[in-house]
């Protein structure tokens, strides 16, 4: 479990310890289909995906966003996360190896709370960003 970041010790440019994930599997997409309640067949049913012009099924954007969440909550406790947002910039295919990385982009105080702004992203094995996001966590 993450400990609360200490505001005075955090520096802009600090990098979070990256998270390298196992290759995305069809099994994982099936689990996420059930676990998330997102039952869009495009993520689990190859016939359906092909019918709509895709070469294969592909990962839910929200599965990758959950990886961003894992990175952020490895840096600060879950109840210190104030914001998490992302753009989904490219599709994550079955077999892709995603690395989740992040760095500190700002430090500020708002309503008496010390906040740390982070840039977070998912990148595939080809070096292409699949998610470009940001987060804000509260510090001590």
């Amino acid at each position, binding site marked *: *479990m993450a400990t609360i970041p200490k505001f005075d010790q955090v520096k802009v440019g600090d990098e979070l310890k990256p998270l390298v*994930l*196992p290759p995305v599997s069809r099994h*994982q997409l099936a*689990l*996420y289909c*059930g*676990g*998330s*309640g*997102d*039952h*869009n*067949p*495009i993520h689990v049913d190859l016939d*359906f995906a092909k*019918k*709509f*012009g895709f070469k294969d099924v592909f990962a*839910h*954007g*929200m*599965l990758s*966003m*959950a*990886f*961003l*969440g*894992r990175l*952020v*909550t490895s840096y600060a*406790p*879950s*109840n210190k*996360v*104030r*914001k*998490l*947002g*992302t*753009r*989904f910039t490219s599709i994550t295919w079955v077999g892709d190896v995603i690395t989740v990385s992040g760095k500190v982009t700002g430090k500020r105080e708002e309503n008496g709370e010390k906040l740390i702004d982070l840039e977070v992203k998912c990148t595939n094995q080809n070096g292409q960003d699949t998610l470009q996001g940001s987060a804000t966590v509260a510090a001590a």
Partner: protein
Amino acid sequence: MELDKKLIGHTFKPFTTTVEAGKIRLFCKAIGEEDEIYSDEAAAKAAGYRGVTAPPTFLRALQADDPNKGGLLRLLNVDIGLILHGEQHFEYFAPVVVGDKVTCQEKVVDIYDKKGGALWFVVQEMEMKDQTGKLVAKGKGVTVVRNPDAAKK
């Protein structure tokens, strides 16, 4: 295909759902999350939570509990195979824990197109309140609709 911009401002019927331990467990298994605050009540309480809590993006799974699920697609008259997720943003005001009854209210705040109508963007905002009426989170999502007619031109 063209989406009706008059639907901007449409408000969906709110619904209330209960945060369930089993759903969080399956969600965590799917995303590879093993922190015990999401599965063990004692660990969660020791970490300062009222009970077993949920990972940050689990809120989207609560949205999927809508008894009128798929309302956006029916409203837009769009096939589920044509949509992609463009953006998602959450703002958190308080953690939700197992047993909380969360009321979700969603509305359409913008509709616009790019690339000469080849792609349409629908922006939705969502508010989540707990059983005491306290705002626990806000969400904003962008759904991208691929225009099936664009490829034919």
